[in-house]
Every structure is written in structure tokens, then in C-alpha cells.
């Protein structure tokens, strides 16, 4: 009985976990490549969901086209923000960088409020509403589709980073900027790639979750902090760690909601964040890092 309840929670956790994994991945990208914690990640996620609403509901485009257009637009927005603001704040204290990303988050959330209004939007069901029952477990089909697409995107992104020439160049730039530049990597392109893909991945997360969530302009911050918690769980800056952390957080959250309390669900997530920061700041997956003097 307990095992079947537990496995039910784990399965429900995987769908939301795959979304957290996408956001965590976008955090890890900017941290690993440029040591920037980009606090507007949840806003890119929110814009992704609104992009889906605009393209699919208001303009009547097919869903696959909505995904492509929204992702590209949000990625372009990420790159534009990088060129206008972050490039100039690069060398300054990390506080300024952190605060400027917070400023971005405020501006984006309220800009979205101006365009789409403060009310919640309900996206139509685009995935089938079938429910599979396998050995006492109920699995909604839309959850399967969401996890499937999220995992597909992550695998594709990993293949790009680890198997292609460009991916290798970008990874080299993340490790050692000067040497990578000497080897012929265009740093400006690499930086824009990092910001653009990080914003785009967040937007895909929002697009995928749109059908099962009420979307308002103010959902950004909670997903920012949860995505960040996921990234910390797996080890900030690690690609595999982000994915692992995302799924782990989704599962933990579901188990907590079910077994402990749903009102204190978010509080427990934040407690986990603080505890991991204190006890194992390098994340659950990574080996201990030694601080250099």
C-alpha cells in the first residue's frame, strides 16, 4: 500500500520535476559559463507560457509553430538584455549583477502585466486527457507528454553541447575564456549563446506547463526560486546535476504535499534549499570542492 502510494507520488513528481529541471538547466548554464546567477529565469518561463497563449489561443497558430516562435523570441530577449545591461556590469561586483537581474525580473513581470493583464489565463488542453491505469498507479497522459518533451529537449541540448564542434567550443569558453579565444572560439557568440539558450530553455518550460497551470504575470518568482533550488540540489553549474536536481525536487515536493502538509509545501522546499546550501553547497551529485585562497 505504502509503496504504491509512494510510487504514485514519484510518478506525479516527475512531470513537474522535468519543468524544474529545464529551469535549473538554464540557471546552471549562465553560472557555469559566466558565473552569473540570472534571477529573471522564472520570468522567461512566464513569458514562455504567455507566448504559447498569444500564438496558440490569440493568433491561432499550430502548437509546434507556437513553440518555435516563442522560444526564439524569448531567447532573443535574453540576448538583447545581455547586450544592453549585463555586458556593461560584467566586471563589477556580483551584487550589481544580481540586482540588475532582479531589476530585469521586476520589469519583465510588470511588462507582461501590461500586455496580458493581471488576471489568470487558462490554456486549453492540447494533450490528450486519457488516464492510464497500470497496476494501481494512475498516470495522466499529459504528464507523460510534458516529461517526454522536456526530456527530449534536454537530451538534444546535451547532444549539442557534448557531441558537436560548436558545443565543444562553448564548453571550452566556459572553462577558460582566454585559451578558448586563442583556439578560435568567438567569445561574443559564446556568451550570447549562453544567455539566449538559457532564456529559451526557461521559455520551453513555461510552454510545456501552460496547459496544466493557471498563468498570471506573477508566477515567475516562485519558479525562479524552485528552479534555483533544483540547480543547487544537483550542484550549481553542472548540467547533469541540474537535471537530476529538477526531478528530485519535483518528487520531494509531491511527497511532502501528500504526506506532510500542502500549506507548508513551499516552506519545506526553501528549507531544503537552505539546508543543502549549508551542508553540501556543492550539491548532492558533485564531489567536494576545495576553496582556493
Amino acid at each position: 500500500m505504502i509503496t504504491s502510494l509512494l510510487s504514485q507520488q514519484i510518478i506525479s513528481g516527475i512531470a513537474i520535476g522535468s519543468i524544474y529541471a529545464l529551469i535549473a538547466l538554464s540557471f546552471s548554464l549562465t553560472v557555469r559559463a559566466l558565473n552569473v546567477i540570472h534571477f529573471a529565469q522564472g520570468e522567461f518561463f512566464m513569458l514562455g507560457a504567455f507566448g504559447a497563449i498569444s500564438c496558440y489561443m490569440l493568433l491561432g497558430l499550430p502548437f509546434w509553430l507556437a513553440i518555435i516562435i516563442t522560444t526564439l523570441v524569448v531567447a532573443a530577449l535574453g540576448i538583447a538584455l545581455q547586450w544592453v545591461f549585463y555586458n556593461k556590469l560584467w566586471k563589477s561586483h556580483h551584487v550589481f549583477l544580481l540586482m540588475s537581474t532582479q531589476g530585469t525580473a521586476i520589469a519583465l513581470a510588470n511588462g507582461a502585466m501590461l500586455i496580458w493583464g493581471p488576471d489568470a489565463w487558462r490554456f486549453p488542453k492540447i494533450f490528450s486527457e486519457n488516464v492510464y491505469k497500470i497496476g494501481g498507479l494512475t498516470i495522466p497522459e499529459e504528464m507523460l507528454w510534458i516529461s517526454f518533451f522536456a526530456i527530449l529537449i534536454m537530451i538534444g541540448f546535451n547532444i549539442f553541447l557534448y557531441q558537436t564542434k560548436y558545443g565543444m567550443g562553448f564548453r571550452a569558453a566556459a572553462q577558460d575564456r582566454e585559451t578558448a579565444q586563442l583556439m578560435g572560439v568567438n567569445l561574443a557568440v559564446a556568451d550570447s549563446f549562453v544567455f539566449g539558450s538559457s532564456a529559451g530553455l526557461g521559455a520551453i518550460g513555461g510552454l510545456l506547463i501552460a496547459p496544466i497551470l493557471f498563468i498570471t504575470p506573477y508566477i515567475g518568482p516562485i519558479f525562479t526560486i524552485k528552479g534555483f533550488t533544483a540547480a543547487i540540489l544537483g550542484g550549481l553549474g553542472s548540467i547533469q546535476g541540474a537535471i537530476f536536481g529538477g526531478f528530485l525536487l519535483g518528487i520531494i515536493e509531491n511527497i511532502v504535499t501528500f504526506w506532510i502538509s500542502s500549506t507548508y509545501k513551499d516552506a519545506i522546499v526553501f528549507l531544503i534549499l537552505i539546508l543543502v546550501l549549508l551542508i553540501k553547497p556543492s550539491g548532492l551529485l558533485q564531489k567536494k570542492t576545495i576553496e582556493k585562497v
Partner: protein
Amino acid sequence: MKKNISLAILAIVLLVLPLLFQSRYTQHILNMILIYVMLGISVNLIFGYIGALTLGQAAFFGIGAYTAAIISTKLGLSFLPCVLCSAVMGCLAGFIIGIPTLRLKGPYFAIATIGLNNIICIIFLNWEHLTGGAVGISGIPYASILGLQFDTERKVYFLLLVSVFLIFLLYRNMISSHYGKVMIAVRDNELAASAMGIDTAKVKVIVLAISTTIAAIAGAYYAHITNYVAPDAFPVMESITFLIIIVLGGAGFKYGPIYGAVVVVILNEYLQYFEQFNMLIYGVLIMILLLFLPSGIAGIVEIAKAKYYEKKKIYYLKEVGIDEMK
């Protein structure tokens, strides 16, 4: 001598200021500026002088406000004991939270404080029989000291002015004392400071506790002035506003909190005219300020002062016939 005159002028201006404005609204803005000066001082101690970026100061502000609200409505204690209890609670919370989290470096401490602020807000929202849940606590009495009721904005202004003056005095003495130098040493190079025999962890925790005490006192005043506390007054966004006050006013400058509080409160009020655009403008303004004004208003004032005295010195030297000071 000259300094004394300018101080006297400042004191007169501050005392006459509320009498110049008749509308309750303007007087309310003056009071909010004073509360934000207190909060600015509290953030400047921990961020400006220790260098720990805190995005959770609103949690301590909220702890102070809720402590005062609960004690005054449930136990019926008067104003001063309430402020004292809030201060003790703020101090305790600072120690409890600071001892583990201040080991974290740079942005990690900031993130831990964001998590903390969210946890405190969720507790305010859900611990219903103590905090009243989403409705909050209303019917907090006006502040009164020795039978004197502070029930109008103008009376409250003078109460706040005296309190801010006392806190500012303590703060100024603290940062210009030996301990202030220790704090700056810890901020600028923690490793070198610990090599000089400074217990950096202890310094950080003590300064955080002082800063949270001040934030909690500001919270107690806030509760008694507005007569009402609710959980939506203390979100992370409010902590960011406190930080903006300091970055705009000048982090690590003595007068930074004052410049910052004046500008941010007035800016916030003016932005209300833009209705739904106000937060958008606010966000963009933050980024523009960070780009073009990284050392804040106090930084500009310092530069201007240095230039002014430089010039005067050269004039003086010219008068006495020395010219090679260029």
C-alpha cells in the same frame, strides 16, 4: 564652528518640516521616509559594511511588526515594552539565522536569505491562531509614552525623528569606532582580516544581529503607526526595495541610507501616477542606476566634496604664493 551652524540649520529644517505641509498624505510620506531610513541603516550595516548581500531583511522587519502586534493586542502591553520585545526578537532571530548562514559566501548567502524570507512569509500566512492568517492583525493601538498619545501623523513624525536620531547616533558611533574599522576589514578582505587576528565569523554574526534588531524596531514602529499588519507587507520584493535604498544612496557610506530613503520613497510616490506602468519603470530605473551610478548618491557627494576642498586648497595655496599643487 561652521559645522555646528549647518547642523543647527538641519535640525531646524527637520523640526519645521511637518508644520509646512498641511496634508496628512505628505506627512505620511515623511513618516515613511523615516521608517525607511531605519531600515536603510539596518541594511547598510550588514551589506555596506560587512558585504553580506541580504535579500531577507523584510523578514526581520516583519518579525518585529508581528511581535509588536501580537504583544500589544493579545497581552495589552504598551508601546515601549512592545518595541523592546520586538528588538529582542529581532536580535534573537539574527543570531539564530546568522550563525549557520553567514558561513555562506557571496550570492549563496543572498539566496539563503531569499529562502528564509519566503519561509517567514509562509509562516505569517499559515500560523492562523497567532498571526491571523491572510487577514493579518488589526486594531493595534497608537503608540503612547507616559500617557502621551501619538495618534496623528505629525505627532508620530516627532516620535520617529527622535528614534531615528538615536539609532543614527549609535550607528555613526559604531562605524567610526574601532569596531567599524574591523567591519570594513572583514568586508574588504576576509582572509587578511582573519590573518590579523579578527574572528571574522563572530564579527559578521554580531553585526547581523545588530542590523536585524534595528529592522525589528522599525517593524514595531510600523505596526504601531499603521495599526495593522498583514503578511503581504513583508515579501522578498520589500527586501529588494531596502537594498535598492542602499545601493542608490551609497552602500558603505555613512549617509547612504538617508539619501536612499528620501529618493526611493518620493520616487515610489511619484511613480504611483503612472498607475500600471510604475513597477515597470521601477525595474528599468534600477538597472539604469546600476549602470550609471554604481557608488550611489553618497559616492557622488563624496567626489564633489573632494573636488570642492581640492579647489579651495589650491586657491589658498595660491593666495600664500605656492602654486605647484596642481
